[in-house]
């Protein structure tokens, strides 16, 4: 692959992102602007921005790689990533918008009238944000290594630095513009190469005959029931708790707009995920040699150059590199905005200057972690973050919105249980898989048991603690669920 193409694409995306970021800076002035763009973003913009923020390295590179590697079971990842927004629509979107809080800790504190709950939620939001940024940086490292031949760390450092600068300079309004732009860039960057491949592959003989490229054992018939169900629980419910997604809902003007935005997101994601899925299918037929754990994630970057000859191949490669880079930039900056928002409000007094300091801090830590850990498959490591979120923030959020009986102690107990269980599953996974292979699926996909246990603990502790139900519960719930113009 020609390194000049890699450099050009990466520099172009970085420049455009920074320019749009600074353009946004001229409009954003007050603290409220900084955090939630003054709630004046129309649904299409907002939905594009949510899509832009959400489609990460796992979506852009990881899904195609995993389909190549493991077959049709990987198709559950994009299904879950998308259907998570259905759950968000059904249970969270409108009430959360009406809560009027900026961040998840704001929400839990207002709902449960407890500073302790706020602190616990803040810690979880920060941990989840950091965990989620790490695979983005590793994806950037992979992209830079494959496309330019530079050492891996250059990619991680470049993405981290850019994100910190753009976020600290512009805040959320800037990020809304950047994110919306990034969604359409990512869609074009993966759709155009797929269309080109569709046109070209008619004339090329596949490396493998169809029956070998798509064996029935790797197909839908080889469904592993426990793993699939558990993955779906993690992805569907994990989406509800992702901090960078939730913060977006505060930028809708009212509850019905929040619902409309969510439906548009669902449509945008459904369109987008058709393309990585097709890429994966192409990979199985035309690039079976990449089907090993180290190379599979690079499939999207490598395939256009292999199948499309000459200048067109170079241009398509530049496009996918740009799209991949946009994916790392946008997801990381969305996460940094929400993590920095939490850090600055809780530790640094909520000032604009505090937000800037927090933005730098919250890119530095994941960068360190990315250096210290071995990169695993992108889709898989993001899946684990979803499982962690589903077992920690999701029960509190759902019960807080729909159940009067939730108390502060119940919430803390549930979050702690979820964190300990999923943390143990993630950290202990390597030990168990070697010593007790029978438990492998149970540990690798913990959501099916960790989420129900966390919900159960939350409910039981809340019931035992019934007398301490917050006094304002009924008023707060009314505010969450009443249509806007009927509020007292």
């Amino acid at each position, binding site marked *: 692959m020609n390194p000049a193409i890699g450099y050009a694409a990466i520099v172009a995306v970085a420049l455009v992102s920074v320019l749009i970021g600074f353009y946004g800076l001229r409009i954003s002035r007050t603290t409220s602007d900084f955090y939630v763009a003054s709630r004046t973003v129309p649904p299409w913009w907002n939905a594009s921005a949510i899509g832009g923020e959400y489609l990460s390295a796992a979506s852009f590179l990881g899904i195609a790689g995993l389909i190549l590697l493991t077959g049709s079971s990987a198709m559950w990842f994009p299904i879950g990533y998308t259907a998570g927004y259905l759950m968000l*629509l059904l249970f969270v979107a409108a009430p959360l918008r009406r809560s009027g809080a900026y961040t998840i800790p704001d929400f839990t504190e207002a709902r449960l009238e407890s500073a302790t709950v706020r602190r616990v939620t803040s810690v979880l939001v920060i941990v989840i944000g950091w965990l989620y940024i790490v695979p983005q940086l590793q994806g950037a490292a992979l992209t830079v290594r494959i496309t330019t031949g530079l050492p891996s760390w250059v990619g991680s450092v470049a993405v981290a630095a850019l994100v910190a600068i753009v976020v600290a300079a512009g805040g959320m309004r800037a990020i809304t513009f950047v994110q919306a732009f990034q969604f359409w860039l990512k869609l074009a960057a993966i759709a155009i190469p797929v269309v080109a491949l569709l046109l070209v592959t008619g004339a090329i003989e596949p490396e493998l005959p*169809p029956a070998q490229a*798509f064996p029935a054992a790797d197909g*839908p018939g080889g*469904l592993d029931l426990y793993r699939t169900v558990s993955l779906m629980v993690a992805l569907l419910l994990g989406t509800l708790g992702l901090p960078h997604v939730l913060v977006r809902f505060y930028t809708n003007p009212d509850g019905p707009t929040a619902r409309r935005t969510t439906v548009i997101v*669902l449509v945008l994601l*459904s369109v987008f995920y058709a393309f990585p899925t097709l890429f994966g299918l192409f990979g199985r037929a035309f690039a079976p040699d990449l089907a090993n754990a180290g190379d599979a994630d690079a499939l999207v970057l490598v395939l256009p150059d292999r199948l499309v000859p000459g200048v067109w191949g170079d241009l398509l490669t530049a496009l996918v590199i740009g799209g991949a880079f946009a994916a790392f930039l946008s997801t990381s900056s969305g996460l940094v905005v929400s993590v920095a928002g939490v850090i600055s409000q809780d530790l640094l007094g909520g000032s604009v200057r505090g937000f800037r300091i927090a933005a730098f801090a919250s890119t530095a830590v994941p960068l360190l972690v990315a250096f210290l850990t071995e990169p695993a498959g992108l889709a898989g490591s993001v899946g684990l973050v979803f499982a962690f979120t589903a077992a920690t923030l999701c029960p509190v959020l759902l019960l807080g919105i729909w159940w009067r*009986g939730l108390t502060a102690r119940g919430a803390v107990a549930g979050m702690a249980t979820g964190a300990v269980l999923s943390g143990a599953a993630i950290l202990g996974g390597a030990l168990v898989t070697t010593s007790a292979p029978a438990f492998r699926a149970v540990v690798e996909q913990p959501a099916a048991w960790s989420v129900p246990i966390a919900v159960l603990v939350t409910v039981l502790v809340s019931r035992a603690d019934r007398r301490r139900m917050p006094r304002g519960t009924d008023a707060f719930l009314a505010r969450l*669920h009443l249509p806007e113009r009927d509020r007292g």
Partner: protein
Amino acid sequence: MTGEPPADPPPRVRVTAPRAGAASARPSAPTRAGARGAASPHDAPGDVQSVYVRSLIRSQLRLGLICAAGFAITTAAFVIAVALVPALDEAFVAGVPASWLLLGFGVYPLAITVAVLYVRAAARNEARYRSLAEDR
């Protein structure tokens, strides 16, 4: 969110009660008010109001759960059907087995359909609440 014994505070019991049939929110509000003996028309308007609010929350939750269950059941049925028909593994469309294509692209339309139906029904619930609150 689990099935609770009747010792629960009243609002929770209704949430998981067997009356999962569709548009039953409207009659339930006045009945409940009467049953508690708390909200005759001469009482403070706040009480009636709060009964309406709880009724709205219940009907929205019921709607959400019905939609979620509907999506889960149709998806499971669809996927099991795809997995159990071996002919779909043999039928190649453009070199790819039909079963792979169905799994890869078939679930998204289901999700979008449920989402659109939900948004309409949720807005209807809110409109119903409004008309109740204004009737008063």
